[in-house]
């Protein structure tokens, strides 16, 4: 052995630091442009090119374009961050070529930010300094009270809000570091200093020292930095972000996903170095157990226990698999993590491989995610070149290799036994469990399969201890969970919150509530295997057990917001159609059950439902749930059962009254023209694809109901709301 693991890590960290020092980013203006599938779709590549063109034209060498992953603020992409040394970073939303020009000439060259286009900005001037108070509800810290007093102190001293602003933020994840002692953490920006304050005296010291004299108050500085410091520093002023607690996504939108140096500079591979120095897999497993880390793929099985099971097997040929077959429609957090922070997932895999004694690991990634595949392959190659993968990792004598295997568009392959079959090159059909993969998995050898997000948490837990992670979550499950917030919600995107956060906080406070001012009807969690949580239960805490009790599941973390405009029978039918199509066909209950359930649901939405259907649906669903071979069939009826449970009245309206309360089911609605409102502009008639609207100019029009195909075009185009959907 040439180097021991600690020496190896030190030399790696030194090299990374030297590379970054050469780039001298601290004294340059950074233009940060996101690069991930969704950012590209929104046009971020063109934006980056445009900045590059401006940069060349300006001839300045103190400006750098920095590529990062995606922050998860999908609806506002492309997002561009501008960091001027000594100033609070500014993010712009929905940047296009024209805006690039304005940002470059006004903000970068003339120091006047383009206020109107700042992400989630209210239009007020930007402050020079900001103090962010940690007001996480978990540790019940005194943050809020201190912030108010700080605000009052600022006012009495006549310090204007555009000079210094005090802002509230969610849990920094620092409370665990103070061993749970009540203390408020305050992040001073742009200096990026974390203070720990407790009394009014401390606040006064902050104002006199930090604000007025511009020096760091050493006495109050927190002893250790929180995990997401860089993230908070860059995105802390945006409510959508500072109400989150980022652990798994801490580097998303911060590091360049293709740069090992940047990952290492933010303490990457520090956890692996510690693991390889200690050479004690039992320590890793006990930390994970203490952390109460549970499988983030949806099952919620304790990760520590799973690893311990594989470790105690007699068979010494073992495998570890990262399940990146994110097939749930509506979930995209795995893609984001693979694309934005690939080294973190690779590090988690290596640690897992070492802990269970595996020689080889596999990434199983959907073929639909080409960029994720490219980034992971790049991360694997770079790690191999730098002695972090392959033989004798970090000089510790541990040999481990990683390989990517592609999925091919089969949802059932997210199920672990089906996934194993698929890696073996077979049709992805599940097997009966037991034996569990930890006993006999890939090619008959003990195999551990974990979700991408589970691996994303491993390095954080080992760096900050299991106890720290456990304190962030609930009594049964530690840490945070990433949710993919989509559907009828104002701010769509990725939201990472501590387990135990209420649904309402996620949807209303972070997500900004239902879009278009509509009323919330339900929140769907867990994708096709999950269920609906009605609006009346939105104060429920998000955790594995409460969701299950309500008839849904955590799943991989898809969260679809449904408004009053959505018909629950229709959405249940949508999910059932998905499960029916994705059923692999191996076992009868699932293959036939999903088909018959779908038939009944189709009948109901066609207005041909009969009263017995509700009972039949219930019985079939229970049967499918109890007797199917794998998780797909067992969970497929969940959307039907939970909508029957919480929205029985909608089923009844469809069946008995032949009426769709949300006016969504085409067969049960019709369009009528209100003669009093219609001014005879003829726009509806011109837009009708079947020409069933008649009427003279400037006279009320009429729809011929027999010919109408209910496409809704007339409803959409009418400027006088003269068309009623009934």
């Amino acid at each position: 052995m040439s180097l021991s693991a600690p020496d190896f890590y030190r030399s790696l960290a030194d090299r990374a630091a030297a590379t970054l020092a050469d780039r001298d980013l601290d004294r340059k203006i950074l233009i940060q442009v996101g690069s991930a599938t969704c950012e590209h779709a929104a046009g971020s590549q063109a934006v980056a090119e445009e900045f590059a063109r401006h940069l060349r034209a300006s001839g300045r060498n103190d400006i750098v374009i920095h590529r990062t992953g995606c922050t998860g603020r999908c609806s506002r992409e492309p997002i561009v961050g501008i960091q001027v040394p000594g100033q609070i970073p500014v993010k712009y939303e929905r940047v296009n070529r024209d805006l690039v020009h304005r940002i470059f000439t006004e903000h970068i060259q003339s120091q006047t930010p383009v206020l109107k286009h700042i992400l989630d900005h209210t239009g007020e001037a930007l402050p020079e300094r900001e103090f962010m108070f940690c007001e996480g509800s978990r540790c019940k810290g005194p943050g809020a009270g201190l912030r108010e007093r700080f605000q009052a102190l600022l006012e009495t001293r006549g310090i204007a809000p555009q000079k210094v602003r005090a802002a509230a933020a969610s849990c920094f994840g620092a409370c665990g570091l103070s061993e749970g002692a009540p203390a408020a953490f305050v992040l001073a920006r742009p200096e990026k200093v974390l203070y720990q304050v407790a009394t009014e005296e401390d606040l006064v010291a902050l104002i006199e020292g930090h604000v007025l004299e511009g020096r760091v108050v050493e006495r109050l500085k927190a002893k250790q930095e929180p995990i997401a410091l860089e993230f908070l520093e860059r995105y802390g002023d945006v409510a959508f972000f500072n109400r989150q607690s980022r652990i798994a996504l801490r580097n998303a939108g911060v590091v360049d996903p293709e740069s090992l140096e940047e990952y290492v500079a933010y303490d990457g591979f520090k956890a692996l170095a510690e693991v390889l120095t200690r050479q004690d897999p039992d320590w890793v497993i006990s930390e994970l157990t203490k952390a109460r880390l549970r499988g983030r793929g949806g099952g919620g099985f304790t990760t520590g226990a799973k690893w311990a099971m594989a470790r105690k097997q007699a068979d010494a040929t073992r495998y570890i698999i990262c399940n990146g077959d994110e097939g749930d429609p509506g979930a995209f957090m795995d893609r984001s993590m693979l694309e934005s922070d690939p080294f973190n997932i690779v590090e988690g895999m290596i640690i897992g491989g070492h802990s269970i004694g595996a020689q080889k690991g596999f990434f199983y990634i959907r073929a639909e995610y080409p960029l994720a595949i490219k980034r992971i392959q790049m991360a694997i190659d770079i790690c191999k070149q730098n002695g972090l993968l392959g033989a004798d990792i970090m000089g510790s004598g541990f040999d481990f290799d990683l390989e990517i295997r592609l999925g091919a568009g089969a949802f059932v392959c997210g199920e672990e036994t089906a996934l194993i079959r698929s890696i073996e090159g077979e049709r992805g059909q599940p097997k009966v469990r037991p034996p569990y993969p930890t006993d006999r998995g890939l090619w008959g050898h003990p195999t551990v399969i974990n979700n991408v997000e589970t691996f994303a948490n491993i390095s954080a837990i080992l760096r900050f201890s299991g106890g720290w992670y456990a304190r962030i979550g609930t009594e049964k499950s530690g840490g945070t969970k990433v949710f993919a917030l989509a559907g009828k919600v104002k701010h769509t995107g990725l939201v990472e919150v501590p387990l135990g956060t209420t649904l309402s906080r996620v949807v209303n406070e972070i997500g900004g509530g239902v879009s278009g001012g509509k009323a919330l009807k339900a929140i769907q969690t867990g994708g096709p295997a999950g269920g609906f949580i009605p609006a009346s239960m939105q104060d429920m805490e998000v955790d594995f057990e409460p969701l299950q009790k309500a008839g849904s599941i955590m799943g991989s973390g898809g969260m679809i917001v449904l408004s009053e405009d959505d018909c629950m029978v229709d959405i249940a039918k949508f999910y059932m159609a998905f499960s029916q199509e994705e059923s692999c066909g191996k076992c009868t209950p699932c293959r036939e059950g999903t088909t018959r359930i779908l038939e009944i649901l189709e009948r109901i939405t066609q207005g041909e439902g009969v009263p017995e259907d509700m009972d039949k649906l219930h019985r079939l669903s229970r049967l499918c749930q109890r007797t199917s071979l794998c998780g797909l069939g067992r969970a497929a009826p969940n959307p039907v059962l939970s909508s029957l449970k919480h929205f029985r009245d909608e089923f009844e309206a469809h069946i008995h009254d032949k009426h769709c309360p949300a006016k969504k089911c085409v067969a049960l609605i019709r369009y009528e023209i209100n003669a009093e409102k219609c001014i005879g502009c003829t726009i509806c008639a011109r837009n009708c694809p079947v020409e069933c609207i008649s009427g003279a100019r400037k006279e009320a029009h009429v729809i011929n109901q027999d010919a109408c195909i209910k496409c809704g075009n007339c409803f959409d185009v009418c400027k006088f709301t003269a068309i009623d959907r009934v």
Partner: protein
Amino acid sequence: MSDCCHGTDNWEELERGYRAMLPADVLAFIDANRAKEHSESMLIATLHMVQGHFGHLGPGHLEAVAQLMQVPLAKVTGVATFYHYFRLQPRGRYLINVCLGTACYVKGAEKVAQKLTEELGIHFGETSKDGIFSLESTRCVGTCGLAPVVMIGDEVHGPLSPSQIPTLLEGYLARAAEDMMANSASEPK
């Protein structure tokens, strides 16, 4: 191949024929994996490569893969038909994938799909007569924040409304026309 039965063994001839059906990179991939442990597990990866080259998996391709990898054709066909990602029919120059995931569905993906079928005059799973567009649906491309989205080739477009569809298609038609002009110009007369 085998040393014992020279008289009836036509493997070399067959192998030459099968090798002629696949591109060099696929052959190199198959050859590289043959000696490895669990080489049959590379079947899906091999099919991905073949489809990447030809755009679909024809009957001849499946047989060639089966023979060269020494995996039963029944298994190769079984795998190719099990996974949605594999297409057994040729497709147009641009594959249009309408996302019908949940987020897109609740944001009106059905109307976008409807408009596409009207504009193109084809149904899902079909290719337009000029061979330029193929229309398919997919379950979530993972860009739910931009719902409803349509993926054309490798490019994701969203959020889309039905009225934007004609302009979007025209853009691709123009691109296809340009490509064809460029191709015919570069060909020797």
